């Protein structure tokens, strides 16, 4: 590419010409000034080509100068700090920045994947749908090619080293947009004493008005807009109730005026000791949207060539950054505003060879001003072709009211500025239900003030002012934002002439060269094809053609696309409507969304009183709910399997101890507590004697098993309910739900005391001896039989001792206040030395319970399993008239004997059956999937039995004892025999000692 130094000699209101910085683009050093965007600096260094399109890999330059940019996307930063798909037009240049072009191979200038462009005739609208719906062979053939060639920037593969924070703010009024309308609204509400925030997404205040005044000399209260903005800011800064923020993007407006905003804090100083970005969650009494308007491109042949730009963008580059996309710029317009671009270009010494005005007799003051400077104005003329491929070399002139086949003239130029009119930026207004109305005169959708998004009080929570409300002219703009609006002098403008395709009678060949959506390569012909193929809803046409998808979300293409769809369907534009505006307005990185919730503080980690000891012993941790529990305690170089085997055998042969503190503990107390528990549990709990324990099941109202655990009756009106570790909070909430919302007149109180107690399970034939060694309360067989509890001193601890067992061995669980947990643990270890006591982890616990055929919530249950499936009918009280789940168990499917039920499974070869194994059955189901007759729910190696054991749910399993069935896991088959799930001590002799 030829290098053209296009930085202008003068001007550039946003850049600091006295200072030089440098960044890298595709390995080349690009000179820049503070205040530049990547786009302005690249243009200043002669790089118009800044990207490739998504589908056809066509060469592209920036078409805009702001957030609506679809083309000029780059990847910024390297390795872990790499961020793809950033718009060069909104990315601030900083010293040392590294930017790379995307979606090209091997390079931006020579992109071999541009072959897609030659194949474009074979990739029309709906190409992806048609290809992928056509069948598997097409998928296999095309998918790898498409995946390789389609796409934007790559995702980083390393963890992001930057930090992000989230903040909250509350305001009476949040104003989105720091142009003159936003600042006027801020003055209005700030002076009245409201708590006001003003959010401006760019680093600069003033918006369009300050740029446009360079062309038209408009004044506000006799001041140039730049001076008026300065004065307004000075006044606002002095108000303590007003907060002004630049570089803060209002991304989405949600229910009840909940605004999400992203503040750039340290994007230009990577590695600084600051959060890179801050995500704000804001609540407003009212949100004032002063987000301005977006200029629309025109659909003419070749409108996607690098160097074809929005007229307002050309103006911005010249005025703000002293760069120009060319030295000879042809302007194509259907309105007066584009003449402002001609005026600033002429002032900067840039040639305007011609202005092609699609209107027949343009004659407003701005037109006249340009004509007076000798510029050739060609009413009713248009562009038949843009000459040049990677950069503009000229245009072929034609009449607008023509087929575009007769070239009247070639006009040499190196850039084209286009203006199809403006569309108010209604995104935030629309995010939360604000409705739009089509303004035929102005040819845009504007917010319908009668149908605003509503707040909790049923009143409008948002209001649009300025250009966002459709008030494009400076005087109307300020009048809409302020009750005592300042005096504005601005030239009059003649009406726009809506034009959606030019030349107007272009045939299919030319329409296939008119781009609507630059990023997704959607052309006028694609929308027309979609309409012909029956995609009449704008939402369907969008998905069929991909119009308005990806990072720019159709900011430029939306209105043009639906206008063309309306034409194709021969209906007025309002009948077509718009697609849904969804947040965020521009993309937000995942880092900011995650905020501080990453790594160790992703979620709270709950630790028991003995956690440090486990850590010290080198416990391998297992997350359970938000707790961490020792999975096993491997010795040095000891594999986990060996540690688990050792721990299981310790319990079976002598004694082991387990940190059971995480088990849920809920106190239920009150005169109606027994009655309440009879409803919550399937068993009868009201008849449980004081001093006794009972294993209980809980079902949801639709009959499925939710949780289980041992219930102890502590006193006449007090029960202690143990829940699973993961279930404590949910079960407590479940109890409160029923108490507060159904049986609110019952006298019951619940308290979740899980964290108040440390609990240690001591299990094994020598368990009692360990407790006796501590001394204290009588724990003999007679004084403390199985399924009872006692309280009293134990080794000096104020303990409650439950004689319960989840291992099948003689077992005790000792609860003490959490503060004494570690001391108790140490004393038990000490006292157990004589019996070679071993701590055991959750995996040994699981193996021990599986050997006994005890179920585990979450293994044997999955939300579709009822107690009857698990052979737990004995726990379903027949005496009770009612309990949660009782009615559900009478439903025909539930009551049917023909269900998958729990059995034990022994592989014939003694191997451990994979946990994911399924037992296939002959035939296929209605979805043409293979029938099944059972699945594994738990599977372990049993150190006690020296073989694999498993439990599973098998169709009519308990009636099929002794039968052999085949399980299949990952293509491997294992034959298993159906047996009782109780593999160890079926008579329970070990318990009753």
């Amino acid at each position, binding site marked *: 590419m030829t290098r053209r130094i296009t930085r202008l000699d003068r001007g550039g209101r946003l850049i600091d010409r006295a200072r030089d910085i440098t960044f890298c683009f595709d390995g080349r050093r690009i000179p820049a000034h503070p205040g530049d965007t990547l786009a302005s600096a690249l243009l200043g260094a002669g790089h118009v080509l800044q990207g490739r399109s998504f589908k056809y890999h066509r060469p592209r330059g920036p078409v805009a100068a702001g957030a609506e940019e679809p083309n000029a996307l780059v990847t910024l930063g390297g390795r872990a700090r790499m961020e793809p798909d950033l718009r060069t037009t909104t990315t601030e240049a900083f010293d040392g920045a590294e930017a790379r072009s995307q979606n090209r191979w091997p390079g931006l200038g020579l992109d071999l994947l541009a072959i897609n462009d030659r194949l474009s005739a074979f990739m029309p609208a709906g190409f992806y749908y048609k290809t992928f719906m056509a069948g598997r062979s097409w998928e296999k053939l095309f998918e790898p090619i498409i995946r390789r060639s389609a796409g934007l920037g790559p995702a980083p593969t390393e963890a992001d080293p930057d930090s992000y924070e989230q903040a909250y703010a509350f305001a009476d009024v949040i104003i989105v947009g720091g142009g003159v309308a936003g600042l006027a609204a801020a003055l209005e509400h700030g002076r009245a004493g409201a708590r006001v925030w003003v959010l401006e997404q760019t680093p600069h205040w003033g918006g369009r008005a300050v740029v446009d005044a360079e062309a038209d000399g408009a004044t506000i209260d006799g001041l140039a807009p730049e001076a008026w903005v300065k004065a307004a800011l000075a006044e606002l800064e002095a108000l303590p109730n007003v907060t002004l923020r630049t570089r803060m993007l209002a991304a989405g407006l949600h229910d009840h005026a909940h605004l999400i905003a992203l503040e750039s804090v340290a994007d230009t100083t990577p590695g600084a000791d600051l959060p890179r970005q801050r995500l704000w969650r804001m609540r407003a009494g009212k949100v004032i949207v002063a987000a301005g308007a977006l200029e629309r491109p025109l659909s003419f042949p070749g409108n996607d060539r690098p160097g074809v730009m929005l007229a307002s963008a050309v103006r911005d580059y010249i005025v703000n950054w002293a760069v120009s996309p060319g030295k000879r710029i042809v302007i194509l317009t259907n309105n007066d505003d584009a003449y402002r671009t001609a005026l600033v270009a002429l002032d900067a010494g840039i040639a305007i060879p011609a202005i092609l005005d699609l209107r027949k007799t343009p004659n407003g003051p701005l037109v006249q001003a340009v004509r007076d400077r000798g510029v050739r104005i060609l009413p009713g003329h248009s562009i038949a072709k843009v000459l040049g491929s990677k950069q503009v070399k000229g245009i072929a002139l034609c009449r607008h009211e023509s087929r575009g086949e007769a070239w009247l003239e070639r006009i040499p130029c190196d850039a084209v500025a286009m203006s199809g009119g403006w569309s108010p930026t209604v995104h935030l207004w629309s995010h939360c239900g604000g409705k739009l109305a089509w303004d035929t005169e102005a040819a845009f959708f504007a917010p319908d003030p009668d149908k605003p998004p509503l707040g909790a009080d*049923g009143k409008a929570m948002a209001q649009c002012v300025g250009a966002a409300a459709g008030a494009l002219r400076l005087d109307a703009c300020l009048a809409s934002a302020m009750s005592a609006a300042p005096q504005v002098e601005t030239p009059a403008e003649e009406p726009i002439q809506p034009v959606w395709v030019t030349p107007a009678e272009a045939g299919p060949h030319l329409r296939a060269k008119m781009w609507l959506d630059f990023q997704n390569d959607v052309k006028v012909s694609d929308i027309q094809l979609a309409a012909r193929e029956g995609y009449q809803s704008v939402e369907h046409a969008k998905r069929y053609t991909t119009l308005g998808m990806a990072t720019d979300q159709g900011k430029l293409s939306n209105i043009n696309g639906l206008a063309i769809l309306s034409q194709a369907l021969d209906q007025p534009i309002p009948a077509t409507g718009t697609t849904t505006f969804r947040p965020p307005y521009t993309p937000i990185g995942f880092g900011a969304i995650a905020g501080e919730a990453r790594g160790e503080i992703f979620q709270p980690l709950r630790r028991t009183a003995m956690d440090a000891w486990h850590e010290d012993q080198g416990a391998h941790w297992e997350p359970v709910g938000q707790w961490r529990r020792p999975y096993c305690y491997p010795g040095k170089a000891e594999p986990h399997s060996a540690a688990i085997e050792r721990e299981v055998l310790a319990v079976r042969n002598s004694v082991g101890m387990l940190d059971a503190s995480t088990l849920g503990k809920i106190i239920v107390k009150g005169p109606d507590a027994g009655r309440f528990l009879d409803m919550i549990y399937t068993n009868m709990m009201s008849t449980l004697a004081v001093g006794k324990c009972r294993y209980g099941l809980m079902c949801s109202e639709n009959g499925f098993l939710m949780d289980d655990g041992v219930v102890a009756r502590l006193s006449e009106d007090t029960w202690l309910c143990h829940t699973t570790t993961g279930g404590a909070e949910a079960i407590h*909430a479940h109890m409160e739900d029923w108490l507060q919302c159904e049986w609110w007149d019952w006298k019951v109180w619940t308290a979740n005391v899980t964290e108040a107690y440390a609990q240690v399970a001591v299990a094994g034939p020598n368990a009692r001896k360990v407790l006796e060694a501590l001394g204290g309360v009588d724990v003999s067989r007679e004084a403390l039989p199985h399924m009872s509890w006692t309280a009293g001193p134990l080794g000096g601890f104020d303990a409650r001792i439950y004689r319960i067992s989840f291992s099948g061995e003689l077992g005790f669980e000792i609860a003490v206040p959490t503060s004494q947990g570690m001391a108790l643990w140490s004393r038990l270890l000490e006292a157990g030395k004589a019996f070679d006591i071993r701590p055991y982890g959750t995996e040994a616990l699981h193996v021990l319970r599986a050997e006994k055929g005890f179920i585990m919530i979450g293994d044997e249950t999955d939300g579709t399993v009822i107690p009857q499936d698990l052979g737990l009918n004995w726990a379903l009280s027949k005496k009770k008239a*009612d309990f949660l789940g009782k009615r559900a168990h009478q439903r025909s499917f539930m009551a049917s004997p023909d269900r998958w039920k729990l059995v034990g499974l022994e592989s014939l070869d003694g191997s451990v059956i994979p946990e994911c194994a399924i037992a296939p059955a002959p035939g296929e189901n209605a979805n043409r999937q293979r029938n099944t007759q059972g699945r594994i729910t738990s599977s372990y190696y049993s150190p006690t039995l020296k073989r694999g054991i498993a439990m599973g749910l098998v169709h009519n399993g308990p009636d099929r004892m002794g039968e052999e069935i085949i399980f299949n896991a990952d293509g491997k088959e294992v034959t298993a025999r159906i047996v009782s799930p109780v593999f160890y001590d079926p008579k329970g002799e070990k318990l009753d000692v």
Partner: protein
Amino acid sequence: MLRLTCPHCGVTAEETELTPGGEAHLRRAGPDATDAEFESYLFARKNPKGVVFERWRHAHGCGKWFIAARHSVSWQVFGTYPAQTTEPPADLIETIRAAIPTWEGWQ
């Protein structure tokens, strides 16, 4: 994200402080219910495009359940009241009727 005022403690809470509990004022169908009654209780929900009565728990606050009457399209909140009742308060019903004269009523 909604903002609802807890009628128990008076806090106007962000939705993240609350847990939802679905349609309010369901009448529990017990063991004597017919299949149709029980099915309706378990699964059938009104889900109107209009005024909804929803259960919410101020889970990260006072822990109490309450009921919110709001509009499912406009998000207007007509009022909240403690869940310990079988029907909406009369003044709230009047408020809703005043706002939406065509309202079919809560039953």
